[in-house]
């Protein structure tokens, strides 16, 4: 993990406009953007950022690169990520939405073998306020501080960050894991990262109703996370009817374990957190007060 100002970052993208915008946005936040990668555009520049046709050319030029932010068209993401891995990169943030899930399966088999951290696809990436942006978090909602955020959403993350910032609760790291059905890293991985992160004193976990990752996260927190956690799950009041196939419900039931009833998912999620004494916010604006309470308890 290198999430510091020194981290060397590249942007892999073909449509010059979007790639450039993101690269510049990251650079203006202090990120050390060392290169853009665009096959066939090698030798050009994106407003001062040198562009290469291959990742390995950038590596040859600037040495080991830490992170790639991928903004390629969805069907080219797998190849771009494999190229980054083959060039020794250990952190990849995929901004693109709509990567076919089986491409992600292929990528993750590889990434697990090489111990590469994948964030996304369809994610805003990682922000360390005033230090590093690898992804697309709007910096204006963030301010440095002790609160870590892990979220399955993009815009809702900004909403929560803004609530915290307004209440003068700055953020250490905020990560959006991605909204696509199969994403590269899980709540578990990031709970562990933030648990070990010295700047983080408390973790806000932003979940959704669909899927079972929140239940798993709740039990993981109670077993291995030392820092206080505040949870917020969107969609708990919304009248949604989830139509699962037998196979899908079976999988949900399995991952949820026997402790929780997979038929009443919404209740089960909140119950899962309450069972391990993690406060669950009813709305974004509740989060700051729950955070303050938890922090106070911690320091008593």
């Amino acid at each position, binding site marked *: 993990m290198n999430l510091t100002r020194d981290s060397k970052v590249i942007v892999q993208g073909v449509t010059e406009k979007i790639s450039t915008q993101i690269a510049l946005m990251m650079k203006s936040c202090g990120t050390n953007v060392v290169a853009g990668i665009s096959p066939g555009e090698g030798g050009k520049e994106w407003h001062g950022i040198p562009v290469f046709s291959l990742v390995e050319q950038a590596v040859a030029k600037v040495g080991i690169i830490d992170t790639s932010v991928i903004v390629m068209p969805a069907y080219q993401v797998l190849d771009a990520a494999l190229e980054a891995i083959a060039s020794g990169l250990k952190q990849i943030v995929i901004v693109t939405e709509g990567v076919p899930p089986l491409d992600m399966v292929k990528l993750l088999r590889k990434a697990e073998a090489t111990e590469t951290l994948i964030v996304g696809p369809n994610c805003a990436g990682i922000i360390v306020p005033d230090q590093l942006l690898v992804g697309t978090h709007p910096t204006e909602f963030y301010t440095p501080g002790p609160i870590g955020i892990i979220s399955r959403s993009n815009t809702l993350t900004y909403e929560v960050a803004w609530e915290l910032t307004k209440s003068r609760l700055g953020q250490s790291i905020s990560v959006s894991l991605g909204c696509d*059905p199969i994403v590269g890293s899980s709540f578990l991985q990031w709970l562990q990262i933030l648990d070990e992160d010295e700047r983080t004193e408390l973790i806000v976990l932003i979940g959704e109703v669909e*899927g079972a990752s929140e239940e798993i996260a709740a039990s993981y927190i109670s077993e291995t996370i030392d820092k206080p956690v505040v949870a917020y799950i969107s969609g708990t009041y919304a*009248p949604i009817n989830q139509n699962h196939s037998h196979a899908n419900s079976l999988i949900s039931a399995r991952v949820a374990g026997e402790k929780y009833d997979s038929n009443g998912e919404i209740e089960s999620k909140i119950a899962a957190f309450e069972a391990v004494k993690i406060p669950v916010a009813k709305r974004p604006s509740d989060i700051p007060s729950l955070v303050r309470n938890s922090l106070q308890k911690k320091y008593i």
Partner: protein
Amino acid sequence: MDLLEYQAKALFSEMGIPVLPSQRIDYPKDLKRLKIPYPVVLKSQVHTGERSSLGGIKFVENTIDAVAAAQTIFNLPIKDEYPEVLLAEAKYNADQELYLAVVLDPIVRRPVLLGSAQGGIDTETAMKNMQQVVVNQEFSPFYARRLMVKIGLQGKLIESVSHIVEKMYQLLVEKDLDLIEINPLGISPRGEVMALDGKVSVNDYALGRHPDLVSLVGKNISNNYEIKQEQVKGIDNNSLLVTSNLNGVSSEKIIPNYRLKFTELQGNIGILCNGEGLTMATVDLVMQAQGKPANFLNIKLGDYLEVKESLRSQMFTALDLVSQKENVKVVLINVIGIVQTSDELITIIYEYFNKLKSIDQETIPFVLRLLGGRIGRARERLSGLPVEVMENLEDAVNKAVFLSK
């Protein structure tokens, strides 16, 4: 997108998974030209799995009975869905029925092989005895054999059934499927295997690289579009709506080109947000404030710049969807973090009201919650229109609920 049984079986057959001789029936009279010998099974081609208990499957012994049964099935909605097509299929005498599936598991992020020695209509029993094998690394047939041993098969059945699972997996990968299910896989007294019913879900993201699937399901898309089109007034005719989920309380529409996700409900507040989580959070807040959502729509406005030409037509479609139904009394728009495009959005909303006026369409009040955009400019530009611009989310929700009463 879910395929109908006969479409799934066409894929099975292509891949070499054995299926029974069958014939597609578009009209009851087609049964007079039936090429399959009686007795025959007639099956309603709808998207739900429970058609058997709901009368969607009938055994017939001769043409007269068959035509009568077909008329009944064509006129029988299964969970609100009328079949457009029936499948006439030979009868099969199975000694044993297995459940087999390959499905993508979002938690382990791998395809998972599922199997039960008790397949068939009684899904409860199948579920209870379900065994699974996670395909951790690249697939190889031994994963299928592991499942066979887990569900208790022996002797030659291990090879013959695992061969079917191999082909299911191959189909999953070749066609980018989310799910492929055979239930039941019939096993004859002589040990031959036969896919008696099948379900296939195609991944929408990957459709772009499977023109063959698009043409296979093309008919589904256009038909469903027509059905739903009637319910929504004033929709831009250039937009392609795809209804991916027809049964149950909600119906979700996906517009592949624009990546809109739309859900309809029974209330009176139209809700439009950017981002799945934010949408759900906004609906939650409306419910908590005793409001009643009429619908909710998640639109991808882009954390980074979208191609601008598409934004206008995309937003017009989105605004049509959330506002142009009789039950909608107020529209709540909650967008966040789109600094670069917020001016664009404001202009689009301005133009949308002008468009409605130009066709003498009645307008309803809008509440626009804007975070991360130029809110002052929005208030200025939209003054004179029934649009309330706000920055605080809960204020905006309360305002919308108030206006809906």
